[in-house]
């Protein structure tokens, strides 16, 4: 494994940089020891590793301002890092430099505004932390949870437009950001959203993102390449009295795709998460599952919430009516029942997909984990499933597809996932993910949390004017290319 890439930091001025970093962060928060750097040099994916030169544990905004000013002056790369769980190699340094770790010491829930329903967070807050805080102190409010482990970052996922268990009603997490505080390349601080009004220390003015020009786009999905976020306000939602789930089982790609689209359009379920039956069997203890002929292809979990029993029952009836229509159209049967009781029958372990946040064991039990996670046109789910299945077969990998309806089926998530043994199988998996990417691109999918190698492939087919504008924007936001350089393959 080749770790040393061309770091921009040359060995001669390393000790000078170290002294400056120690001055900014305190000696105990700075390290350049190889064994400390190593965990930041790779992730679970096939993305090429790369060593940083320093790790700094960030504690406050002042430190961020000082380090950015210094780095900009010296053209030193800064790689912002929370927990590195993005599954896209997005915190692997491409040109060495300083990893700014926000996960360990800059992780306060600054404020929950109960009536305006938002949480003001430091970058390092995790899903588990926010979940526990709300449950214990604001049980009438809720946030969303992805399939990601509870120890992964909320802000990291918001600024990467992650998807979660409220995505069918509310869409991508990027849409739910009310405001950001960001340190720009020259060390100035900018506050985006309604927080631009009033006292800058106020925690009460983070209620909305519009109606001014939406500058949030300069930071969302940029993978830390345009500025350093130091605060982020995320929308919370009222928690309804009843929160239950339905479980449906669908037989083939056409039926599953229609089910995801049509149930999404009903606008009554919080989320639709479809996983291949193989994945359900992984959770139930089969390490190398194979789909048997008559097994249904996709179990689908439908989290739903309602104000009371009557409201819930109306929703269930509407889901069942929609199912009847699909059954008729496709001459099929879709079985549907209460998830809690189904799970108790089939095996409690299946709950890993439902009790979020949670460690989804099938996702983390191998040393390697990768996926081609995409935003997909809902109409193309059927060929996507069928053609991706062929790639899984070609590479002899258990089929693992995860799909969602987003924002009432305006768009969908299509995410084929591969678990593998990192040392043994990486080369084969690289080929498999490359093949899957081609299928996805063919059907108009756009990869999210885009690894560099995928971004480079994307650049070959996208509008060149978009790319030119994108590069100009990066140059404007980061003239010395210090913020996570190399991301998006530019």
């Amino acid at each position, binding site marked *: 494994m080749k770790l040393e890439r061309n770091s921009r930091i040359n060995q001669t001025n390393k000790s000078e940089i170290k002294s400056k970093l120690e001055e900014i962060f305190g000696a105990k928060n700075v390290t350049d020891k190889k064994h400390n750097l190593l965990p930041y040099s790779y992730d679970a994916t096939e993305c090429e590793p790369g060593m940083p030169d320093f790790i700094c544990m960030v504690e406050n905004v002042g430190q961020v301002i000082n380090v950015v000013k210094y780095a900009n002056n010296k053209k030193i790369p800064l790689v912002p890092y929370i927990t590195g769980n993005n599954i896209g190699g997005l915190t692997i340094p491409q040109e060495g430099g300083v990893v700014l770790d926000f996960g360990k010491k800059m992780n306060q829930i600054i404020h929950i505004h109960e009536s305006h329903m938002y949480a003001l967070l430091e970058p390092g807050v995790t899903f588990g932390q926010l*979940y*526990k805080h709300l*449950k*214990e102190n604001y049980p009438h409010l809720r946030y969303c*949870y992805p399939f990601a482990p*509870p120890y992964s970052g909320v802000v990291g996922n918001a600024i990467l437009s992650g998807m979660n268990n409220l995505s069918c009603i509310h869409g991508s997490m990027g849409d739910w950001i009310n405001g950001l505080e960001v340190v720009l390349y020259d060390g100035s601080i900018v506050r985006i959203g309604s927080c631009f009004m009033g006292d800058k220390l106020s925690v009460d003015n983070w209620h909305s993102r519009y109606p001014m020009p939406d500058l949030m786009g300069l930071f969302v999905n940029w993978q830390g390449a345009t500025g350093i976020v130091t605060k982020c306000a995320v929308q919370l939602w009222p928690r309804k009295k009843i929160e*239950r789930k339905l*479980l449906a*089982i669908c037989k083939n790609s056409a039926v599953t795709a229609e089910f995801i689209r049509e149930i999404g359009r009903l606008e009554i379920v919080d989320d639709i998460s479809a996983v291949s*039956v193989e994945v*359900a*069997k992984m959770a*139930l*203890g*089969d390490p190398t*599952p*194979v789909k*048997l002929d*008559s*097994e*249904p292809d996709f*179990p689908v979990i439908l989290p739903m919430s309602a104000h009371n029993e009557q409201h819930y029952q109306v929703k269930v009836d509407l889901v069942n009516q929609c199912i009847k229509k699909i059954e008729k159209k496709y001459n099929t*049967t879709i*079985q*549907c*029942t*209460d998830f*809690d*009781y*189904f*799970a*108790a*029958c*089939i*095996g*409690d372990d299946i*709950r*890993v997909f439902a*009790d*979020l*946040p*949670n460690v989804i064991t099938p996702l983390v039990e191998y040393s390697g984990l990768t996926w081609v996670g995409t935003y997909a046109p809902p109409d193309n789910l059927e060929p996507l499933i069928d053609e991706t299945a062929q790639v899984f077969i070609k590479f002899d990998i258990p089929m693992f597809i995860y799909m969602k309806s987003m924002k009432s089926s305006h768009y969908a998530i299509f995410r084929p996932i591969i678990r593998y043994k990192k040392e043994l199988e990486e080369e084969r998996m690289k080929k498999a993910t490359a093949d899957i990417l081609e299928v996805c691109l063919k059907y108009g999918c756009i990869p999210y949390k885009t690894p560099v190698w995928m971004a480079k492939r994307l650049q070959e087919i996208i509008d060149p004017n978009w790319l030119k504008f994108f590069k100009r924007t990066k140059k404007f936001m980061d003239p010395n290319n210090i913020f996570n350089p190399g991301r998006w393959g530019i």
Partner: protein
Amino acid sequence: MENRVEKEIIEFNNPRDILGMGIKNILQYRKTDPKFLNLIKDWNKTIIIGFKDIYDVTVIFKGMNIHINYGSTQDYDLWLEIGSIQTMTDLAKGDLGPISGFLTGKIKVKKIWNILVLLHFIRIFIPNLRMAGDVGELRQKGIGRRNEVGA
């Protein structure tokens, strides 16, 4: 009588189909209960549990072994068809009893003349399914979930 099998354990195979895994899970709810062990021991019967519109699972009771196989066989003592996974969860919840299941056609039986086998299997299966129902009820109330705060 009960002491006779107290120390014995039921040996299960590892079914690799999803419904077979479920049947195993249900049968395991009372796997250490001496009364249950007595019902299982040397029963030596083959039962097919069919899930309508999905597929059949064959459960072979032999000595202290329970083998759960994907698909069906010609050589069975009883064939029970469960109308849907909703019927299964209704049985678990207690919203549907086995008798009303038969009467309403939500559960169908072949070789009904083996009434003793049917009754014996009901005594094996239904209390376990009801225990699953209890677990489902707890989970619905938020008890024992994997994300339970303070768990």
